[in-house]
């Protein structure tokens, strides 16, 4: 038995009309079979309470809904800067799942919130083999890595955890999460799958190291204070030939186009970290933790290297043979780098997984996926600039 899938897209401007149309199309495409779970992504302009409530009511209020907002959404038809996509899943017997959420992270520790989420997910999962967890979190929280740590404390260090951080229209003001009939920020939500589920994963970015290797000599969590014993910002100041003030002005470009890469022995690619802000003492704040004493490089990406990575990730993901549906968490950086050629990336994915396989996804401010090398025991890390392609089947 396989998972039956129905995807509905709407680009209507009105959230009510958009929600209704997307649900109607999804129901039509699942041939009106019973939906067990709905995954929903919307562009940030449609993200509203009325959107999720209309989806909730249109589906029948008992169906769990989970998802988040993005700068643009991805589905088989197109990449839409404005739209909502709903994926309905009809799970066969033997596949189990649970959904949960955690809110108001500002008031708790990220680690604690992750543990809370894990605890909630495990509810009712006793005696069932756990396979995979898919999570969505607010794209503007700074301690994404700690959230993952917390979740791993409960689900297992090597438990496959895949996900994306919600995004807005690059204003970095507010991102949204959907959980059942609710919309909220400053939180996370996740699905835990168990039973007879099969999945494949491709995680690649295509950014290449540039310049000489350097060591992180002083660091705490996601704040790098010194590189090669000099204030961390000096590296960027040297590379971009500008002072702190000018650097801050260019931060939008630097953040998405020139991250730092952490060298991970045994891994094919560097683990990327986006620069979020620069503190007055020259410390660099990254999106995700950077271990002290790690070897880092400045990274650069090109359209071609980016698309090659997509091709490799797709090939990797489809090795498992799972092909009932595909989820794509694609970094916003790639969207900005590829610009009008973003559709080429979608084309590569579609060609890779087969044009009839339902694909949905969104552009994210961060990606969560396990590392490949054996030495990391499949542990999930927080990524940037990365495309995560998850193929699922049963």
């Amino acid at each position, binding site marked *: 038995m396989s998972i039956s899938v129905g995807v509905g897209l709407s680009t209507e401007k009105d959230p009510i009309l958009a929600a209704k149309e997307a649900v109607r199309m999804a129901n039509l495409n699942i041939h009106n079979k019973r939906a067990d779970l709905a995954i929903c992504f919307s562009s940030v302009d449609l993200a509203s309470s009325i959107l999720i409530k209309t989806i909730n009511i249109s589906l029948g209020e008992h169906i769990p809904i989970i998802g988040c907002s993005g700068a643009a959404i991805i589905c088989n038809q197109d990449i839409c800067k404005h739209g909502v996509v709903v994926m309905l899943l009809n799970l066969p017997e033997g596949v189990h799942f649970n959904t949960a959420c955690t809110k108001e992270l500002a008031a708790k520790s990220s680690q604690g919130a992750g543990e809370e989420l894990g605890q909630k997910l495990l509810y009712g999962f006793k005696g069932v083999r756990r396979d995979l967890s898919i999570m969505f979190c607010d794209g503007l929280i700074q301690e994404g890595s700690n959230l993952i740590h917390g979740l791993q404390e409960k689900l297992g260090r090597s438990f496959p955890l895949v996900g994306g951080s919600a995004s807005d229209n690059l204003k970095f003001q507010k991102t949204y999460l959907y959980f059942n009939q609710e919309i909220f920020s400053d939180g996370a939500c996740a699905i835990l799958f168990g039973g007879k589920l099969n999945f494949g994963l491709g995680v690649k970015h295509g950014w290449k190291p*540039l*310049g000489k290797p350097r060591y992180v000599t002083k660091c705490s969590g996601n704040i790098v204070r010194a590189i090669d014993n000099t204030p961390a910002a000096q590296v960027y100041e040297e*590379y*971009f*030939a500008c002072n702190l003030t000018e650097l801050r002005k260019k931060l*939008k*470009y630097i953040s998405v186009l020139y991250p730092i890469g952490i060298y991970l022995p045994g891994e094919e690619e560097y683990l990327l970290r986006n620069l979020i802000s620069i503190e007055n003492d020259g410390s660099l704040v990254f999106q995700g933790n950077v271990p002290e004493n790690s070897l880092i490089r400045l990274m*650069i990406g090109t359209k071609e290297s980016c698309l090659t990575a997509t091709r490799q990730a797709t090939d990797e993901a489809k090795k498992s043979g799972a092909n009932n549906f595909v989820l794509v968490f694609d970094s916003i950086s790639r969207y900005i*780098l590829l*610009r009008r050629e973003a559709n080429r990336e979608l084309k590569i994915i579609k060609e890779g997984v087969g044009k009839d396989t339902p694909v949905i996804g969104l552009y994210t401010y961060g990606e969560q996926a396990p590392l490949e090398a054996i030495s990391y025991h499949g542990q999930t890390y927080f990524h940037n600039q990365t495309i995560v392609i998850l193929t699922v089947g049963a």
Partner: protein
Amino acid sequence: MHNLDYIYNVAGGLLALLTIIYLILNLLFKMDKIKQLQTTTEKLKKSLEEMDEQAKLIVRTDIELNKTQEELDKKMSGLYALQRLSREISTTLEESQVFKMVSASHLQDLGFEKACGFLWGDHERRFFLHLNVGYMADEIEAIKSSVNLDKDLYLNLIQNEGSLSSISASSEAKIKNKINEIFSVKSFVISPILPKEGNKGFLFVGTENVEAALTEGDEELITILSNQIGQALENARLFEKTWRAQQELEKKVEERTHELTLALEEVKKISKRKTDFISSVSHELRTPLTSIKGYAAILIEEKLGAIPPAVKERLQKVNNHSNELVNMVNDLLDIARIESGKATMKMENQDLKNIIASVADLIMIQCKNKNIDLVLDIQNDIPCVLADRSHIERVFINLLGNAVKFTPQNGKITIKAYKKDKAVQIDISDTGIGMPPEALNMIFDEFYRIDNPINQQVKGTGLGLSLVKHIVEAHKGKIWVESNVGKGSTFSFTLPAN
């Protein structure tokens, strides 16, 4: 033994010396290697530093490239948006719809998120808002009053036909800051809307985004957009004007048509009354006329006794005049019948050759009397016509009778018949006295007689040609005349070919 010891000692000393030499040599060699390694490390370090310098160059170039690409993309999406918007605007023919075409998504593609459109009201002496994208109700109210408070600034723009933007106003920081404050934006473009017809105004677009640097290209795009809006407003106004004029014209035409219909009805009524009157009068006249004729005949035939020749002669005149009167009454009755549609036309296929031959026979005697040459020119394969034979014969007799009457001795009369389009045309030409141009329009009227010597001598009712016209028209044909005084006349008429 002692010697042996000595030898051992010497050998031992030599060995130690050799070892020391070897060690020294080895040390020297190692030191050289270390030196070599140091040089290599230095070289590597230098290469690494050089590579890092190159990396810096690459990064700096790359960031510039990306910036340029972003600007280019922005321009391109702006151009696409402008093209889309222009197409939509240019097809709008309603003034109220022109501004509505500018949507938030168009603006976003142009790189802005806020827009206002104002048009100047000449009578009210203030600006009216026609477009609002991105402002809440209370914000736009504040903008409306601020704009009208500073109306001279915007009126100047309209008058000078120039745009104002964050770039062009950079020298006038005061104005720039004021506009930024009024419209709560970080950069803006204001461009006048200048339709040739009607009220002028201005388009404002702006963005709160500090990073979205405004370029001269943006200013140009917005100027093009405001020109398009101006053009569309002009078109819409012209269309409205034309449409109104057409509506008025249609109304007038309708009114006139109605009036004419009423007048026609009236004319028809009068004409019917006239026909009825003529018809009844003619009927009433016929009875006493028959009596007069009858009694005159009895008296002339002297059935009531002999009468003196002078009386007989007078009675003969009474009889003749009575006959003329009878003919006249008959003609009048015929005209009235045809006009009222009461005349029964026995429409049958008629061979014109045959009709013309028999009519020519009849008229031949009169022609011979005046030595007039009667020429028949009839197309060989002339088609049949659908007509009432007796009525068509009357047409020929009337026209030929007139021709003989007005053609002097030794003249010539030609009957020509031929197919023309879907009809058969008959021309009856004479070499008679002809008619003056002013008479041509009236000769088919009832009782109209041309004032000429012949008419003064020969009596006539003035009904002949009128009857002819009525008969031809009852056959769905046409009749007309061409004539030159002294040269002759040609009467032409058509009959539908069968």
